[in-house]
């Protein structure tokens, strides 16, 4: 159902939904950025549309709404284990088309790679997505190249207009907005400031031995920002915590993990795989544009460009993809100079 909704009516509709739904959207926190007198934009619960920041790209993706940064799994008390509870409320997440594409990839890992993940599935079932149409690309976006520019499979979608919204409601549960019917398409970006070609043919073993990654050994600082801001990075670490007051009681959590960060591959006995940062870059890049696709049929990366936005070392992931493409092209040329 497509309708035009005034600002007031839209907020009234949200107010209605709030009785049943926790709503998540991007929120600007002034002065809370990495650098002094800069802001942070992260996803979190909101209570009205005005709380949300859509002018600037959020530094973090909406994945925290689906996969909590710190997720309590269970408590342990002596030798009993008690499962942690999940919200009983429904969840509505406002997000951009690319991020919605990211959700599909997260589902793939958590629901289709081996058995469905108990905790993920439990929360995921409560979630609906409202796509916010994109009229203009941000710097570093390459969603068009990744084919994740077009909104798909949303529960609702909206275009933000000067004094009203264009609202396309698919899930009837969300049809609580007073407006008039209209026809429109949900905005999406058809051209980014640049486009890249993702190589079809990726010889990961050839690449693993290629020295293209060595530049990152020194450029990358392994901070993990590219992982943490990525809407498709799904790794986690598990943590056990024993309460200081009683060490026989505690809890196990899972928290976002990052393949770029130290200790990711550590195993007992002091062995670490991929201690070179360039190798971690390769591991991540391969996951985003090769092995995930090999396993699930499409690229993991959605081209939101947040990794580029966030990298303090100005490593561009989109350029890294291009470099991989160039290496592969060169290899093909060498093998078949014709």
């Amino acid at each position, binding site marked *: 159902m497509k309708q035009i909704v005034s600002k007031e009516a839209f907020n009234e509709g949200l107010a209605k939904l709030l009785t049943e739904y926790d709503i998540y959207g991007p929120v600007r926190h002034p002065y809370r950025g990495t650098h002094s007198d800069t802001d942070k934009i992260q996803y979190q619960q909101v209570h009205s549309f005005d709380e949300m920041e859509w002018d600037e790209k959020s530094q973090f993706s909406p994945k925290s709404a689906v996969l909590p940064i710190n997720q309590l*799994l*269970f408590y*342990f008390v002596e*030798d009993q*284990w008690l*499962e942690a509870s999940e919200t009983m409320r429904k969840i509505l997440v406002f997000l951009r088309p690319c991020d919605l594409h990211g959700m599909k990839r997260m589902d793939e*890992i*958590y629901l289709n*790679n*081996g*058995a*469905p*993940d*108990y*905790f*993920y*599935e*439990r929360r995921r079932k409560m979630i609906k997505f409202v796509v916010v149409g994109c009229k203009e690309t941000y710097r570093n976006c390459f969603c068009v190249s990744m084919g994740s520019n077009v909104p798909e499979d949303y529960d609702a979608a909206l275009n933000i207009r000067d004094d009203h919204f264009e609202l396309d409601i698919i899930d009837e549960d969300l049809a609580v907005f007073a407006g008039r019917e209209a026809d429109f398409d949900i905005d999406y970006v058809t051209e980014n400031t640049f486009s890249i070609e993702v190589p079809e043919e990726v010889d*990961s*073993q050839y690449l*693993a031995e290629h020295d293209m990654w060595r530049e990152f050994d020194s450029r990358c600082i392994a901070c993990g920002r590219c992982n943490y801001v990525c809407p498709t990075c*799904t*790794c*986690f*670490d*598990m*943590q*056990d915590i*024993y309460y200081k007051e009683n*060490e026989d009681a*505690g809890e*196990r959590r*899972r928290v976002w*993990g990052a*393949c770029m960060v130290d200790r*990711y*591959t*550590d*195993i*007992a*006995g*002091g*062995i670490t*795989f*991929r201690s070179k940062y360039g*190798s971690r870059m390769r*591991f991540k890049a*391969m*996951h985003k544009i*090769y*092995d*995930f696709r*090999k*396993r699930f049929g499409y690229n993991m990366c959605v081209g939101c460009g947040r990794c580029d936005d966030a990298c303090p070392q100005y490593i561009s992931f989109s350029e890294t993809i291009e470099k991989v493409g160039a290496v592969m092209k060169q290899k093909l040329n060498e093998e078949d100079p014709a």
Partner: protein
Amino acid sequence: MTNEYIPQAAVIREIIPHTEREWTFRVETDGTNTKPGQFYEISIPRYGESPISVSGYADDFVDFTIRNVGRVTNYLFDLKPGDKLALRGPYGNGFDIEEFKNKEVIIVAGGTALSPVRGVIEYAYYHPEEFKGFSVICGFKSPAEVLFRDDIERWKERLNVIQCVDGAPEGYTGPVGMVTAFIPDIEIKDAENLQAIVAGPPVMIKFSTLELQKRGIIDHNLWVSYERRMHCGLGKCGHCKMDDTYICLDGPVFRFTDARKLFD
């Protein structure tokens, strides 16, 4: 929807020390669905979980042979029989004994990596007639670090077992040298059909497989068992992925035809 993340408490039946630092914990749990080469996630307070290979099993117990490498495993070495361990599993594919029956078999194992293949060796010990030959080369850093000492002596009764050490004090009389040094000496009848297993640290795997290939073993019949950071054991957490392979789901045991595509 079962919650695979929640471990079970299991009582330690027996603790069998091999060396000062390497003990086998025999834990009371149903081992019927367990295969050699599989692993369990064992909870270690203040550290989290650690993937530990099954080094033996029966209907009512599973053995975990663990090296005390410090902080992480220290806790375990304070436990006594009757105490409980929290574990979940088994995970991974493990070795399928059927693949090895009626064939010549060579097993090359280094250090604690003897654990994942111990089940295969035990099977061969008890059923030597089911194999066309069964050789084991197991290497340890030094005489003091030899694991499964009694087992090895016992295996020698029925199998061709070379237990070597990388280095030894003067006066030591056993074989000294890397495991790779002993591969050329193994008597091989039908290299093309011979099944070989390599288990150990990355470098050992690399050179042992090379050496075995030199002996004419074909990659399809060459098996390796990978140690990686299997963290969730469920194909979610990402830590153990190599290329498009999740070791916890698709491994840790691979034919070398597949394994050679795996790299870090």
